[in-house]
């Protein structure tokens, strides 16, 4: 069973990790962040990406797709942003937000590791 800090630390161990945040997407509040810096304020990123998640969830609902989001990938020139909504009942309404360096990260590996971290968090 992982506490929040060690889960976030584990995420930062992912190759190419720049920052990670656990975010409440009703309010857009970051419950915990690691790797935030002056150049990259994860609190602001968390709030902004909340709108992304909400918009996508609403779209799925309007399309009547009976499916859930496993993750959302946003590819920038130099970074990957991976958003992973947590799905278990007790962590519903939270998502993991991960920023990766595009040159250093292995996307498939990173997604796989995020899945493991999610499982630990949901225990």
């Amino acid at each position: 069973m992982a506490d929040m800090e060690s889960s976030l630390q584990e995420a930062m161990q992912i190759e190419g990790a720049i920052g990670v945040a656990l975010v409440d997407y009703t309010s857009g509040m970051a419950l915990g962040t690691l790797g935030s810096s002056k150049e990259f304020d994860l609190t602001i990123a968390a709030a902004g990406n909340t709108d992304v998640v909400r918009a996508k969830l609403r779209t799925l609902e309007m399309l009547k797709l009976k499916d859930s989001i496993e993750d959302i990938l946003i590819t920038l020139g130099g970074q990957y942003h991976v958003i992973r909504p947590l799905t278990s009942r007790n962590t519903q309404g939270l998502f993991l937000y991960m920023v990766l360096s595009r040159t250093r990260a292995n996307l498939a590996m990173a997604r796989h590791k995020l899945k493991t971290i999610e499982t630990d968090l949901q225990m």
Partner: protein
Amino acid sequence: MPTEVTAGTEAGRAPTVSRTVRPYPVREALEPWCAAGVSGVMRILDAPGGAVYVVDGKIAYAECSVAAGMERLLTGSGRLPAEAWRAAVGAGRAQHRVGAELVATGLVSQAEVEALSVIALYDAAFFLFDLVASAQFEPGARHPFGHLRTLDLRLVCQEVDRRKRLLADAWPDAAIDTAAVLPRRRLSTQAVALTALQWEVVAGADRRRSPIDLARLLGRDTFTVMLEVRRMARVGLVEPGRPGGSVAAGSVATVRAREAARPEPVPPLPRISPERTREPEPPRRAERRPEPRGSAPLVPLPRRPAREPGAFGDFDEAEDRPRGDGRPSDLILTRLIAGLEAL
């Protein structure tokens, strides 16, 4: 920096005694304690009442009667049976480790407890931080739940400000937070998509409950329910009804009224109350004057009745606040002198 905090000790040294302070913005009252890196609790004595726990100068927990506490978030939502909560409280209260007891039962994870404690902290901070209230700091006090995560005061203030902006952007009239939630009977759109929480809100709305009451009913934090109701109001799914009659809603309405009264650049109301002139001034403006610093701790503290909206006091803050230069205004000096003479 409030002088009353350091008045009991040598100025500048870490404060060591608890002291009742005069009405003052809570977030500013917390600054010196956080800067000094102390641990303890600041109890907010005026309505709606609450407490902010500080550990080594960082904000560890906050609670407020109208905000969600750990109990509401865990048991009100149906996440945890009430007996499990009571058992953990019974086992862990004395050692300040209710949270650890809960995790030990295996019913909730450490991460979840931490996340909920941050949610509860921000929910209470939202209602407390901009309150102009009497407060008292008790060094060394700890919350029975135990302190799991600590946050910088600056970070909490930023989040509180962000939440205010978020609410204002969604729906500008704060009265909706304390008014009954009325789901619209007829909608102009063809399709409606609700988030899970929005659905719970609509399902729980009985044309009497305000967002404050619904948050309590659903076991959610008050802020997110207020936000979702405002968002639904914006898209025309619900509308504000009559003011909610519950105690909690009334209490928030009072706080709101005070908040709304403060930043308005209206001319100050004539001060007619003799008691008002005796009230000690917020210390920052008085710092340059030697005599109030020495005598400040001896001043008996006139307490406004808690239910008074504090219109007079809050207009004071409004006119004082924009003065970033730290120089006392003439008005304040006049009142200060009047106050000292009255002693």
